[in-house]
């Protein structure tokens, strides 16, 4: 597994590099004190795993993730417990390590990184008709028509599919469901939200109003949303 380390603190990079050296399957191919330098490297090189510090000056770990079109697996490293909830809003984040990182905890994260590549299970099935999907809720397959969905929200290990009539909580990720939903109607506008953009009521600078809910738009997703709209 090819990996890179991004942390503005040399001692932190040294610790992670040393921990990586204990695992045969891991090959550290780059160490970067800033996310900007890592982006340049990633433009030319493919990696399987990134150890990423969240709290860095100028360009945070979350800003960095937002720049990646097809992010590899990411293990976040931080001195703060406060970011955990936000961290798991990203599908690519597989673990969250609190510094100083110990070997047993590190190995647990690496095990997860290995497992996630094998996992391809989903609680969502697409059917031929293409106008609806079935979701697995409490061992029942429930049919939901695409045109009834106005919002899909990530909530930790779950997503909430919202329709006018009902909300459905499903154990899966936004990444899984976006693959099932038609591009012609749905768009991910934030790391935690997919919207049915045909149901937008209005848009302000950094948010949309959809069925009485105000949903934030990420800077990186805004241009794509604007392209999809029939602007006068």
């Amino acid at each position, binding site marked *: 597994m090819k990996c890179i380390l991004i942390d503005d*603190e*040399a*001692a932190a990079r040294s610790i992670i590099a040393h921990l990586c050296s204990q695992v045969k399957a891991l090959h550290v191919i780059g160490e970067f004190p800033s996310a900007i330098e890592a982006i340049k490297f990633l433009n030319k090189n493919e990696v399987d795993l990134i150890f990423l510090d969240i709290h860095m000056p100028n360009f945070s770990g979350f800003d960095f993730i937002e720049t990646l079109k097809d992010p590899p697996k990411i293990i976040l490293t931080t*001195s703060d417990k406060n970011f955990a909830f936000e961290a798991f809003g990203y599908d690519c984040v597989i673990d969250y390590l609190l510094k*100083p990182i110990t070997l047993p905890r590190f190995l647990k994260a690496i095990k997860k990184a290995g497992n996630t590549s094998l996992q391809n299970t989903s609680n969502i099935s697409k059917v031929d008709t293409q106008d609806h999907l079935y979701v697995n809720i409490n061992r029942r397959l429930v049919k939901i028509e695409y045109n009834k969905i106005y919002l899909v929200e990530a909530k930790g290990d779950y997503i909430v599919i919202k329709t006018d009539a009902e909300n459905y909580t499903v154990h899966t990720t936004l990444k899984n469901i976006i693959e099932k939903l038609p591009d012609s109607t749905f768009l991910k506008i934030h790391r935690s939200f997919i919207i049915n953009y045909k149901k937008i009521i209005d848009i302000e600078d950094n948010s949309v109003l959809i069925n009485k809910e105000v949903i934030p738009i990420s800077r990186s997703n805004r241009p794509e949303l604007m392209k999809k709209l029939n602007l006068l």
Partner: protein
Amino acid sequence: MEKPNTTYIDQLSGDDSSFRNKFINLLKSELILEIDKYKKAFLNKDYSNASEHVHRLKHKISVLGLEKGYTIALAYENELKEKKDPFSNQKKFDDVLTQMVEFLKCL
């Protein structure tokens, strides 16, 4: 008062004394630089920048096993972010830094 220790560094290094020495040297040099940057930012009343340096120093505080020191740093970082001058944790934090520098000198 709690004292710095090398418990974490020893666990991390295992039998690898070469890594241990290299890491301690890195810790010493980076700590001095970060303290310097933090003090400059504080003297310039750039409290936001000072809080960033305190944040980075927190990791080193915990690497040296200073749990109470970490709590002080966390509280101080928040005071700096919120510009709560006078900073009630400043002296306690500076004492933690002094203690760390003195400890590392002996390694």
